[in-house]
């Protein structure tokens, strides 16, 4: 009885939207990796999609209040995993982000940490008694999110580490910050910019510089932006057709099936295709917001909004990067870019949203 009700009460529109987006992703991965060494990526992504559905199911079964109760332990586990990553991790493209777990599979602790951050922020803010955030609340939140953020940034994986921030930001926004807090956070951010510049690696600085002016180094750090813009622009209104995009097929487009999958999609499906994809994403996010609005309690609302903020951030950054409106980062397009960890973590977050939704129906 209970099991029946839960399946029926899952957020089916949200699930269908997610599946539609993931299917377009698989189609594009197939097209983008044709005749390349990543040719098998499309069906692997299918397998990850299936695994993601299972993960979502699991994440929706255990009451999110139970999960919130386990936050200290989950947090501790994620910190330990992040600390272990530099020791056990495999080096890819100059950074260590992955821990091999056998069978040729790799686990990305930073993706798991995203979930933990969502729960952590939700729990902390839901437990507050007042309607206003105190300075010490902000400091505690900043400290708790800042530690894993720094660990991920040190891998180095600046992109993923930055995805923690929208969760925190939306949490604080909803939690009720004082205007003095907002001002001081912004001021602090401005003051930290020069420091940040010093901390950045050379390639990261180059990316920022070329974000401002890609033609500065057209064959170096500006190459990706320039080629991605060419791919997108060449797609035109209706696109070149599946497997017909020259930028994608002749590999002028870098990392086509992961970071720049959306550029490949834009080249082969045109502006019309992009309207459809963005429409799907928009509806998906609105569906999640709707779940936040109807959440049974504050914690549930914060969870949904955290997930929503995270997905929105990733979408903006990835799709914006493809047209040169965002600097280059390794942040994948949620549900579309090839990658098991990303797929699993997004579906687990959708599982959390369903989790919140299912608790609502009980009452």
């Amino acid at each position, binding site marked *: 009885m209970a099991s029946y009700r839960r399946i029926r009460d899952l957020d089916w529109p949200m699930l269908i939207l997610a599946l539609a987006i993931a299917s377009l992703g698989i189609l594009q991965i197939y097209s983008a990796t044709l005749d390349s060494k990543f040719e098998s990526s499309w069906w692997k992504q299918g397998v990850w999609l299936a695994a993601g559905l299972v993960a979502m199911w699991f994440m929706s079964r255990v*009451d999110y*209040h*139970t999960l919130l*109760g386990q936050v200290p332990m989950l947090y501790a586990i994620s910190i330990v995993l992040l600390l272990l990553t530099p020791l056990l991790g495999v080096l890819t493209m100059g950074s260590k982000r992955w821990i091999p777990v056998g069978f040729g599979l790799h686990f990305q602790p930073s993706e798991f940490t995203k979930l933990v951050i969502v729960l952590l922020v939700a*729990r*902390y803010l*839901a*437990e507050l*008694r007042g*309607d206003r955030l105190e300075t010490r609340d902000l400091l*505690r939140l900043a400290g708790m999110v800042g530690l894993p953020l720094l660990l991920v940034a040190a891998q180095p994986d600046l992109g993923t580490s930055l995805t923690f921030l929208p969760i925190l930001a*939306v949490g604080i*926004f*909803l939690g*009720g910050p004082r205007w003095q807090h907002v001002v001081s956070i912004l001021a602090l951010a401005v003051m930290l910019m020069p420091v940040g510049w010093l901390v950045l690696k050379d390639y990261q600085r180059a990316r920022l510089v070329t974000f401002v002016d890609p033609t500065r180094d057209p*064959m170096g750090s500006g190459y990706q932006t320039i*080629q991605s*813009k*060419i791919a*997108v*622009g*060449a*797609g*035109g*209104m209706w696109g070149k057709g599946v497997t017909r995009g*020259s*930028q994608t097929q*002749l*590999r*002028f487009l870098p990392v086509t099936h992961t970071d720049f999958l959306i550029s490949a999609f*834009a080249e082969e499906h*045109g*502006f019309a295709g*992009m*309207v459809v994809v*963005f429409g799907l*994403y*928009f509806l998906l*996010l*609105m569906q999640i*917001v709707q779940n*936040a*609005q109807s*959440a*049974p*309690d*504050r914690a549930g*609302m914060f969870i949904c*909004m955290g997930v929503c*903020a995270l997905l*929105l951030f990733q*979408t*903006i950054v990835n*799709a*914006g990067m493809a*047209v*040169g*409106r965002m600097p280059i980062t390794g942040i994948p397009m949620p549900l579309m870019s090839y990658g098991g960890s990303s797929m699993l973590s997004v579906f687990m977050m959708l599982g959390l949203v369903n989790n919140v939704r299912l*608790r609502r129906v*009980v009452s």
Partner: protein
Amino acid sequence: MRTIPSERQPDSSITKPLYRDETKFAAGKIAAFQWVVVGAFFFLLTGYWDLQVRNEEIYNAKALRNQIKSLPIPAPRGKILDRDNRIIVDNHEAFKLILSRENLREEHVRPIALGLGMEPDVLEARVKRYKPRPTYFTIPLKEDLTREELTFVEAHRGEDSFPEMELIRSQFRIYPQGGLAGHVIGYLGEISDGELNSSEWAAYNPGDLIGKMGIERFYNEVLKGVDGQRRVRVDNRMNTREILGIKEAVPGKDLQLTIDLDLQVVAELALQSRRGAVVALDPRTGEILALVSAPSYDSNYFVGRVNSRELASLMTDPAKPMFNRAVQAQLAPGSTFKPIVALAALEEGLVDENTTVHCPGGASYYGRYFRCHKRGGHGTVNLHKAMAQSCDVYFYMLGNRLGIDKIAEYAEAAGFGKKTGIDMPGEKEGVMPSSRWKIRNLREKWYAGETISVAIGQGYVTSTPLQLAHAIGGLVTGGVWMRPHIVKEAKAAAAARKAEYKVEHMVRVINSMCAVVNEGGTGAASRIPGMEFCGKTGSAQRVSNELMDKGKLGAEYKDDAWFVGFAPRTDPEIVVAALFENGEHGNLAGPIVRDVVKAYFDKKARGAKKQPQTVASAAAPAAEGR
């Protein structure tokens, strides 16, 4: 962090909510967030609209330009052959490395230069020089890569190292080693900035190889052919995915020279390491059989890897190895000029067989004493003896009677004072003075005393070795001057000049030149037994007698030795002029001419059947050594 009881059951939250469950407090903020989402997607969509709808054509063109790449197919340069079709200059298959500028990264320039053993500054300068050109112009990096360089290129061609390096098949020039025929052939070199700015080379691009001297330069357009082009579709690693079109290269034309390598070798050996020149030509056709200027240079030196320091040493060498003396040295011809004066006097009817002069070792004209080269004097001489003994006093008399303008008339008819029109770059015209010439060039009246010096090939008169061979060649073939040429196909007959001189006058001059060699004259040392080899010696002063007598002047002021010879006496087939700078006396230049003439007739006697091995092996090592 506040703790929450972990023993809570999921469903108990309904009755005793531990978390605050009213969520309405954030409703307004959530609505605001929704607007943020709308704004975010609007922001993204405008980005895609801008690229995909507003600027589709621009990006489509860029995508197209990405894929299509044009690679040059260098045309093989024409070979250069001698008159017997023996290869003098050949090509061999080689790899040429070019730098594609469409994907050039400036920080790669130095490491590439270092990897190839080039001067980084030089390469950077070259890259800079290309800045104003469109990016589809490729920069030539290196010709004829060695195995080490090829290894470097192959190891660094990937996307992650130096994708701008591009290897193309090309032809590389091989010249005879040791400078054989160096001045005839010239050499190939990279076009200079100065040349790029000149109208002659307007159609060329920086880095192009062009002929710099000799045949390579004069016939550059014929030899070079037309480069082809290959348009290909490439991927991001510049691997060819599809060939879109090929425009084949049109190979350059082979050139057959009139040069006979056998004679060329003999002439070079005869001149040895002396500064001087030898020009051998067939006066009947104007074909150059051998042309030597010494010291010479090895043409291989300039192709591909030019070491600027060594090049500079060639350029600043006081012996001027880059100077083509055969067509550029303008020196007083001395007594080799006398046959012209003799002919002029005969034609003008001023002298005959019986006109004699007493030579006491000098004569006075216009208040000045002119010495004969023989201090003791020649005694009484007629024209025949005066020529054989090279008696200056006799020719002073002729000069005085003729006057400068008559001498100039005959000398100009023989080609003095103007270019012969040989198909070689840089030919000089020499000087044939006349009263008009002096007014024009020196703004001065001609003094009769100056004619006396000109009559013995001194004073203002200068000639190149080629001019001398040309002039005497025309004289001894009955007054027909064929345009000298060095490439077989060059049209010579059209440019022939003819003079209507009395045959007996010309025969008399020819006979007197025979006496020089065969009747105990000044060229007796060059006699070839059994052959009617004729000629005229000359020793031309570089400074006046007075100066010479006064001080101890250095070797560079010693007289230049000349000899111009021909054979046989009737219907001459070959005329050879030799210059031996600071050689003091013409009978030192005589043996050089004798050797060449002898080699010519020896070869003729042997017939075409037997090809001497010496020449083949002189040219061949260059071809095999690479």
